[in-house]
């Protein structure tokens, strides 16, 4: 069957790791837009923040050029307006690791193969926070350097990514 959502790279964590990368040597530059889905993302340390970086030449970019803005959705109180500029990573949502808890998301990546424009990301997170409530974030981010990139890295503000977390990169066929 022909289709337009093409799987490029998938990683399922089989033992706890400090970070997961999608792309790099597995990157396929033939797409304009990419979709990333992760599911069952669990930290080894409770109450940590989800962080994301781009890869350039297969290495994570750690300089402070990430801006993000999102609406934090939560079931306990007023929704959060989260915004940051010139950070060393994008930061979205908060994860807990009690029984049943995990974090899930759909991301879209734009302009990653375009060396003359910034890299953009949209984010939709849904998960359980360490405070026993539904917590998510809807928003986006930009990396303010006009350069081509070839992947994305996930890590937590503290601790490791636990076993069973699954990350998949897709290309949207032109």
């Amino acid at each position: 069957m022909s289709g337009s959502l093409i799987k490029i790279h998938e990683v399922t964590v089989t033992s706890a790791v400090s970070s997961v990368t999608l792309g790099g040597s597995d990157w396929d530059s033939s797409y304009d837009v990419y979709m990333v889905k992760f599911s069952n993302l669990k930290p080894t340390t409770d109450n940590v923040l989800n962080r994301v970086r781009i890869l350039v030449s297969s290495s994570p970019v750690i300089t402070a050029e990430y801006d993000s803005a999102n609406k934090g959705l939560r079931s306990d109180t007023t929704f959060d307006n989260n915004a940051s500029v010139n950070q060393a990573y994008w930061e979205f949502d908060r994860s807990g690791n009690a029984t049943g808890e995990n974090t899930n998301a759909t991301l879209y990546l734009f302009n990653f193969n375009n060396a003359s424009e910034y890299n953009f990301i949209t984010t939709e997170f849904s998960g359980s926070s360490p405070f026993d409530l539904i917590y998510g974030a809807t928003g986006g981010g930009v990396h303010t350097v006009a350069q081509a990139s070839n992947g994305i890295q996930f890590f937590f503000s503290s601790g490791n990514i636990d076993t069973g977390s699954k990350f998949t990169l897709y290309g949207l066929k032109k």
Partner: protein
Amino acid sequence: MATNLEFIKSVTISSTTVIDMNFVFSDEYDVYVLKWDFSVDTASGGNWNYLRFKDSGNTIDTGTNYDSAVLHPRTDGTFSEYKLPSTTSMQRMGIQDQLGGGTIFTIYNPFDSGSYTFVQCQNSGWDNVSPTRLFGAKGIGVHKVAQSNTGFRIFNNAVSSMSGTASLYGVK
């Protein structure tokens, strides 16, 4: 080249108050996309999508095991926030009235017995009772029971008769 968005099932309803999909989740997929496109038969305003899950015996969970958090963008005023912990369904996951609308749900880990079931919704709809207006939703929900869910039911808070089609896809 094979696609990684795989059609599972489509259900069309006509003038009924609920739509069910039974035994559609399996260990073949972790993530599902559900397209829900319907209109109610008579304009009544405020027909919100409600969602419940069914276990491996096809029994609907009607307990207070659902949390929702939904932002409603709207053209007539301040965006509304709904914080709905420990309710008997995922609630206010998009509005659809007599002139229709559309909702995309993304459903994570429904069949995983070790995980809660998580949902995202994105909706654009039309409230067809004065003041008529564009009314949408961006929301999240969780079914707080670690069990294998195999199906779901969608209904609306007004128990309005509705017609439309739901299509479910697996993301491989």
